[in-house]
């Protein structure tokens, strides 16, 4: 779901860079309170997301997809840490590997990082009473579908493709991609946290 160069209009590029830049700045400020021992884990999480996004899995005939991972990282380390991790991954993918356009970097951080980190994390928290694995799975699926909706809005507003037909196709493909994201998010949360109540509160998030 990495938007390449040439799809977004200048206003869309500027707006998405401003939104993502602000979110990354806020995330960086919140990192001031991060536990020292979690920092190597954030590096490892970023490396895992990087490699996971290199490998596409088939989702339907002629269509593939890859893990986003923002919701998973947000559940494990908090939404602000997730924004930082996803931004690092997406910047390296764009600048070193040409995966995603340089003009679309703001949009890609917004669609694949910020949405998954915040919407995914708070949805997971809302649904946690259903069980951690199910809540993580649903949050992972929603993060992919919302990212696809946002990408369609950006492309539609840029006048590159007709909004509703483009959105319809994106929803069909990414609803399927989201199932794999949901399954992997649920499975990894189960492996790392189990079903027990987590006492720890991630950085920058108020305990309710």
């Amino acid at each position, binding site marked *: 779901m990495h938007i390449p*160069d040439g799809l977004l209009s200048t206003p869309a590029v500027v707006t998405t860079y401003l939104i993502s830049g602000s979110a990354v700045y806020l995330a960086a400020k919140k990192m001031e309170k991060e536990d020292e021992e979690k920092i190597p884990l954030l*590096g490892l999480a970023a490396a895992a997301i990087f490699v996971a996004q290199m490998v596409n899995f088939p989702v339907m005939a002629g269509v593939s997809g890859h893990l986003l991972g923002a919701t998973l990282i947000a559940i494990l380390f908090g939404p602000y840490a997730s924004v930082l991790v996803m931004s690092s991954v997406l910047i390296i993918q764009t600048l070193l590997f040409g995966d995603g356009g340089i003009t679309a970097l703001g949009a890609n951080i917004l669609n694949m990082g910020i949405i998954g980190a915040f919407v995914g994390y708070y949805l997971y928290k809302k649904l946690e009473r259903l069980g951690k694995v199910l809540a993580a799975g649903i949050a992972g699926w929603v993060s992919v579908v919302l990212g696809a909706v946002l990408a369609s809005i950006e492309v539609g507003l840029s006048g590159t493709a007709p909004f509703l037909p483009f959105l319809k196709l994106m929803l069909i493909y990414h609803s399927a991609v989201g199932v794999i994201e949901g399954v992997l998010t649920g499975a990894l949360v189960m492996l790392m946290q189990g079903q027990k109540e987590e006492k720890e509160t991630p950085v920058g998030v108020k305990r309710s």
Partner: protein
Amino acid sequence: MKGKKVAIILIAFIVVVILISPLASYAPDGLENAMEAFGVGEHTIYHAPLSYGASFISFLVSAATGIAITFLITYITAKLMRKRRV
């Protein structure tokens, strides 16, 4: 959540992804399919120095490079952002 356990699972996850990478799909992803359906093409304005590689060996080299750089950049950024608690 124990840090050591999370680290082991993340490392195992990286190893598993690399091992199953030969089974990866090379079909276009959802966005590329939607772009193709509407005749939308990308206009490259920046040429990246590296690629993900076409063979398993070049994939391994790209993955190792990417993993090392991503780990270091994230680690250093997080470390710099964190203020030492008094």
